[in-house]
């Protein structure tokens, strides 16, 4: 990032103070928008700078360039410029870290910025210079909101060559903006007089001033250019109406070039190729392009003496740029006369930046030179260092500037893209890039690349589309071909290999291998950390929560003082998950609340899962207020994230909370959507899996037919998860099967499933699933035989047999759902629809709809005949 983008132009001494315009700006200091719209060379930036300087205004200045059309780049500069407004504490809090920018929706980002700006205590101006370079509609939207939100502490000042695509009519109509345009900015004759006498120390006749005014139409850039050209010789300026001024400037520039040292002019042209230059860069350019040229010092002092549209960059000693329009002309001339030289100098300077360690600039100028292979090499060299720091978004930005067809033929870039896909959970691209690498014959590539490809394939086959056998093969091959110990590749591979072995039922082997790694590596090494992390993965997937807890504590110890970016977040996640499973409210809240402070550091799926844990644990404690506040936080986050899947995750938690409250029935419509497809890849060790919650709702509240289908689905899932030895959800699944069997009236079978669940829960040290089921359906537990071993487990969880009345089973109306049975019972107690609705916290419409279903099932047409049938049972 170039801090110079945040500086306003320095005012040089040869400028005249334009008092009437400065006053006009000052009078409009309270308006939401000042728009200064005129072609290049009308002195727009200088005028604003004069105003800010004269009245000592607080301001944030942002000089835009084309690279800022990338929203992430724009936001980084934008926030840095706001920080300079003086209230940096508030601004820094906008985003906890840069990853957030990649996951939040644009609307959410705008909201955060507006709120933060609103809290800044003092009044300031946000100056956006060269706004015409912005083409990204998202950025226009942000600026529009900033202007229209009526923030009393911020005024937006837009400096542009043409009007921004906002509807300015309303702002004009309500006098909320000041416009300064070409006609306001033109120099009049008296100002030309003043300019000539003060800055150029020239005395010229009124008729000369008149002719200068007519020829240049008050365009100050042309006036100065004209004077400059004239100072070399007697230039006959023809007044040709058909010539537009841009052509004249080219002609004037040509005239100037003929009159100064060609070597000097060449350096000027070369400098114009760069956004900004200083002595060091000039020396480098000269070294590459011009033999025995003068020194940078001499060049710069001559340039200053010549007063050649050189603009010093404020706050940074020794950095300059040309006035944009002059820079453009110089650059254009060089590009048309010697295109090969331009490319070669960009290449040389890219190398020069790279040697100085300024990789961002090095990549930028390689791309400008169309030297993509060099850009790719740079990305390859710096990839690992950036990834170790967790800064994948920098790589993402570099890669975006390289055309797709070039990326596709460049193995390194494709492999880097795979990693970015994993970080952003972009599964569609992950699978297509893997296919592409396969089709271009990755196996013939160098061992490191092929090994990394196999690593990513292994990742895909483990977490996305589980096939542990193939995954293990792929990962082992990856290790055999190329061994390394980096944080994001070699060490992570060990974790994934361990996960795979577990998924193949070889937990012992996996743990042994991890033990060996632990013995071999130092305590402070990443490999040591990864080995323990692998163990926690294995224990969680195997459903051994006790062992998972003790290894998580070890991990916490290892990570103390470690600067590994992801460590802290994973530890809180593990500790929270384990505490959640053992229904330890205090520890769950402690760990997950800590994790929430690290928002965005791990993938949002895990962050969201932590929020799920907090919601559910509060709901199980019947703390309605806290539950609702977490639900709201989750709902907001889901609408703010640009991936629609989070909406589904949030819906699922809402449904599960209602399920706890006995209102799961209201979620039936949600639950029966796409519930049969159950890919096991989604299960892993997540606190809430929407697919499973759908089944929770269906087995408890669905029609008997639905429950029967759900039971089949549960069997399939159980089988599939068993195949990959995933036991994390085993107790939940056994309980759901018990509920389903109970619902369809198969009490014996239900009892067996329940007993299995209780014993499993005790052996794997989890109590949350039991307590959750007990809260939802306490009468289920009446099935347990007090003489059975499982009853002791049940008692040890601190639970008693339900005091709930027996359901009206004897009515032999098992075709009715539990809710329907409840309604029948209340009707037989003499309650009216409204009273039933109130008692069950449902609407009368729902009661009526239940009644319709009951009449249909019992083949009756009204309440009286329904009661008669029931009483006859």
């Amino acid at each position: 990032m170039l801090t110079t983008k945040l500086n306003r132009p320095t005012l040089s001494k040869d400028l005249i103070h334009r008092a009437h315009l400065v006053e006009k700006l000052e009078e409009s200091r309270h308006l939401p928008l000042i728009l200064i719209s005129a072609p290049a060379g009308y002195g727009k930036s200088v005028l604003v700078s004069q105003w800010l300087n004269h009245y000592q205004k607080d301001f944030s200045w942002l000089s835009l360039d084309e690279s800022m059309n990338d929203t992430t780049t724009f936001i980084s500069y934008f926030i840095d410029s706001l920080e300079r407004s003086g209230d940096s504490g508030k601004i820094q809090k906008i985003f906890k870290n840069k990853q957030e920018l990649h996951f939040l929706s644009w609307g959410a980002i705008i909201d955060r910025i507006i709120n933060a700006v609103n809290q800044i205590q003092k009044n300031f101006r946000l100056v956006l210079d060269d706004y015409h370079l912005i083409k990204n509609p998202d950025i226009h939207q942000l600026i529009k909101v900033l202007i229209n939100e009526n923030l009393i502490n911020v005024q937006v000042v837009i400096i542009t060559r043409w009007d921004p695509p906002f509807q300015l009519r309303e702002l004009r109509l309500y006098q909320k903006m000041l416009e300064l345009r070409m006609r306001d900015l033109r120099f009049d004759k008296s100002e030309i007089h003043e300019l000539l006498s003060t800055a150029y120390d020239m005395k010229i006749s009124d008729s000369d001033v008149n002719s200068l005014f007519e020829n240049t139409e008050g365009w100050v850039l042309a006036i100065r250019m004209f004077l400059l050209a004239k100072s070399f010789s007697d230039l006959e300026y023809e007044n040709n109406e058909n010539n537009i001024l841009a052509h004249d400037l080219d002609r004037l520039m040509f005239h100037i070039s003929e009159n100064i040292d060609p070597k000097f002019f060449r350096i000027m042209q070369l400098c114009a190729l760069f956004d900004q230059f200083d002595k060091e860069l000039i020396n480098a350019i000269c070294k590459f392009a011009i033999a025995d040229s003068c020194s940078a010092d001499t060049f710069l002092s001559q340039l200053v003496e010549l007063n050649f549209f050189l603009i010093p960059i404020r706050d940074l000693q020794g950095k300059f740029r040309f006035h944009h329009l002059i820079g453009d002309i110089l650059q254009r001339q060089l590009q048309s006369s010697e295109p090969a030289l331009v490319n070669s100098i960009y290449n040389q300077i890219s190398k020069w930046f790279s040697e100085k360690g300024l990789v961002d600039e090095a990549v930028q100028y390689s791309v400008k030179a169309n030297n993509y292979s060099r850009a790719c090499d740079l990305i390859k060299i710096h990839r690992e260092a950036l990834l170790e720091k967790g800064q994948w978004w920098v790589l993402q930005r570099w890669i975006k500037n390289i055309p797709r067809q070039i990326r596709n033929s460049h193995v390194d870039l494709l492999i880097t893209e795979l990693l970015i896909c994993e970080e952003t959970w972009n599964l569609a691209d992950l699978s297509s890039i893997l296919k592409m690498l396969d089709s271009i014959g990755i196996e013939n590539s160098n061992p490191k690349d092929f090994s990394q490809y196999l690593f990513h394939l292994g990742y895909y086959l483990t977490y996305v589309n589980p096939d542990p056998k193939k995954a293990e093969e792929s990962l082992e091959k990856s290790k055999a071909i190329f061994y390394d110990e980096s944080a994001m590749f070699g060490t992570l591979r060990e974790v994934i290999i361990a996960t795979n072995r577990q998924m193949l039922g070889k937990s012992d082997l996996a743990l042994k291998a991890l033990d060996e790694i632990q013995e071999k590596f130092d305590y402070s090494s990443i490999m040591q950390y990864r080995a323990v992390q692998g163990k926690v993965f294995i224990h969680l997937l195997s459903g051994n929560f006790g062992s998972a807890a003790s290894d998580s504590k070890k991990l916490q110890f290892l990570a103390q003082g470690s600067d590994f970016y992801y460590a802290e977040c994973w530890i809180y996640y593990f500790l929270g998950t384990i505490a959640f499973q053992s229904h330890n409210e205090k520890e769950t809240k402690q760990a997950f609340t800590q994790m929430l402070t690290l928002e965005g550091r791990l993938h949002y799926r895990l962050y969201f899962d932590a929020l799920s844990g907090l919601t559910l644990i509060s709901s199980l404690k019947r703390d309605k207020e806290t539950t609702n506040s977490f639900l709201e936080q989750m709902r907001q986050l889901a609408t703010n994230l640009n991936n629609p899947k989070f909406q589904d995750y949030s819906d699922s938690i809402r449904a599960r909370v209602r399920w706890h409250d006995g209102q799961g029935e209201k979620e039936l419509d949600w639950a029966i959507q796409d519930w049969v497809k159950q890919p096991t890849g989604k299960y892993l060790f997540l606190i809430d899996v929407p697919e499973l919650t759908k089944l929770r709702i269906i087995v408890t509240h669905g029609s008997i037919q639905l429950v029967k289908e759900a039971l089949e689905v549960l069997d399939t899932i159980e089988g599939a998860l068993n195949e990959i030895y995933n036991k994390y959800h085993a107790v939940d699944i056994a309980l759901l099967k018990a509920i389903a069997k109970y619902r369809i009236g198969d009490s014996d079978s239900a009892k067996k499933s329940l007993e299995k669940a209780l014993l499993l829960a005790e052996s794997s040290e989890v109590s949350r699933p039991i307590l959750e089921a007990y809260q939802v359906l306490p009468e289920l537990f009446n099935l347990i035989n007090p003489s059975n071993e499982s009853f002791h487990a049940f008692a040890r969880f601190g639970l008693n047999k339900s005091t709930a009345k027996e359901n009206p089973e004897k009515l032999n109306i098992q075709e009715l759902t539990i809710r329907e049975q409840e309604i029948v019972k209340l009707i037989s107690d003499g309650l009216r629809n409204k009273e039933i609705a109130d008692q069950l916290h449902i609407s009368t419409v729902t009661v009526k709809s239940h009644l319709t279903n009951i009449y249909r099932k019992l083949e009756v047409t009204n309440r009286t005949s329904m009661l008669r049938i029931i009483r006859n049972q």
Partner: protein
Amino acid sequence: MKRDEQTDYRKIVPHESSVYQIKISGKVTTSLLAIVGDMQIQKHPGNDEINLIGCFPDQSALLGILNALNDIRHEILSVRILETD
């Protein structure tokens, strides 16, 4: 920008406000409406041409709308300055 015989740039005075007629191709969409503001929109039945008529304070304002139209992929068929009394 595609020019046709109706586009006469010489008549455009860079710093004076004038009424312009901009003829573009394409359909009237919400993104178009968001840009054109208070300009009058005329749609020719049967073809994909739209006439936009509005007053602009100067060349920078005109250029602003032309660039915005270009950014949302409307081909600009002609720009004409309308004589005013």
